[in-house]
């Protein structure tokens, strides 16, 4: 079975967020990582009943706060002021990470430097000896849900693929990523290898030309 591109061009960041949002089942409990993954929230339908978790101690997080809604005691993991949805709850950090580590969330969406064919994730450290390492909740979130989805550009600024045979950056977690949502395609990490679920502005054959691992057309 072959699949044809579902769009004529690669997805821009917002289109990618919308694409990922469409795959989040109704009523899911979801943690959206800092940065680009945060934008997924904007594309969840109002009736999706998705409950957002923020690792600094809240379920039922609402949109970014504006104006009079800004409350210094209410921030998300990115330290951005947010709001509270009806049915929210607050809990302390140990309870919040118990929720993550215990696998209670349905979906975690994370950014990445690299993802390997086995679902290894590298997203916390460039390995640069001069860099000050900082991990935050990344290693916890990497194991925090049945469905860990990565959202990233498929290639870095130099054109090198970020979906790789083996991660060269320091790892965040082993075999933890289920799907990889990129501007060029959506990939699923399977026991049998990397499957392409959908392409954007390219064919699987074209992707295969730029990626090192064999791709399984879904």
């Amino acid at each position, binding site marked *: 079975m072959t699949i044809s591109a579902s769009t004529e061009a690669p997805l821009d960041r917002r289109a990618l967020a919308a694409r990922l949002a469409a795959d989040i089942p109704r009523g*899911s409990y979801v943690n959206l990582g800092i940065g680009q993954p945060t934008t997924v929230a904007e594309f969840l339908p109002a009736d999706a009943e998705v*409950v957002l978790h923020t690792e600094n101690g809240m*379920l039922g997080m609402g949109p970014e706060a504006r104006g009079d809604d800004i409350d210094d005691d209410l921030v998300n993991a990115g330290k951005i002021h947010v709001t*509270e949805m*009806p*049915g*929210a709850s*607050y809990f302390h950090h140990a309870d919040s990470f*118990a*929720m993550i580590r215990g696998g209670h969330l349905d979906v975690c969406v994370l950014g990445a430097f690299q993802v390997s064919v086995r679902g290894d994730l590298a997203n916390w450290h460039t390995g640069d000896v001069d860099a000050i390492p900082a991990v935050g909740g990344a290693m916890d979130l990497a194991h925090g849900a049945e469905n860990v989805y990565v959202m990233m550009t498929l290639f870095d600024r130099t054109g090198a693929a970020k979906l790789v045979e083996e991660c060269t950056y320091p790892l965040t977690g082993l075999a933890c990523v289920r799907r990889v949502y990129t501007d060029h395609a959506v990939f699923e990490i399977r026991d049998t290898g990397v499957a392409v679920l959908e392409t954007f502005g390219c064919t699987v054959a074209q992707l295969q030309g730029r990626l090192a691992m064999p791709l399984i057309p879904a």
Partner: protein
Amino acid sequence: MAPVIVETPDEALVGVPDGATVLIGGFGNAGQPFALIDALRRGGARDLVVVNNNAGNGNHGIAALIAAGRVRKVICSFPRQKDSWVFDGLYRAGQIELELVPQGTLAERIRAAGAGIGGFYTPTGVGTLLAEGKEHRTIDGREYVLETALRADLALIKAYRADRAGNLVYRKTARNFGPVMATAATVTVAQVAEIVDVGGIDPESVVTPGIYVDRLVATDLGPEQLAESLVKAEATR
């Protein structure tokens, strides 16, 4: 997913497989989900492993479940009570297994399961029969014993009030094991006195966030109604 709200305890207990490990809340009568335990018994699942602080009292609740021959093993801290005759008799007859766990270790093993912790080192029990055969380890000059997470297929708990998102609050010492058990099972069923609309529980006061609750049933039975329901349950067995 927000919890499924069902009308009766029996609907809440549909599909419990034989051999299931079941966490059951309560310390004495306080916080014990009698309506759910009775429904579990009526459901007919066998070879259950029951985790509770005790091993049943009198002829009701967990004792009735045990008397009905549904329980293969009890994991608890304190089986022996003046009215634990149902368990006592079967245990002495070698017809039911017992795993005895110190109360704090029981709570912590359940918490560990819910929190994704595989095991932990506790000072409780070091040098005692209950630590025999378990790994010991000295950390910072103190001796500890390794205990592992206790996960379950099903948790039956009793809370006081729920909202439709599944957030729970408890009442006084009826809180006991409920909040940790809710986190440690594949399916958590909560029996509550009332279910209010979303927004009806202060987010600062939620004890069990809705993410941990799968099925919810409102069942505000007083002692008399409870006795009546038990009689009816016996009649239909």
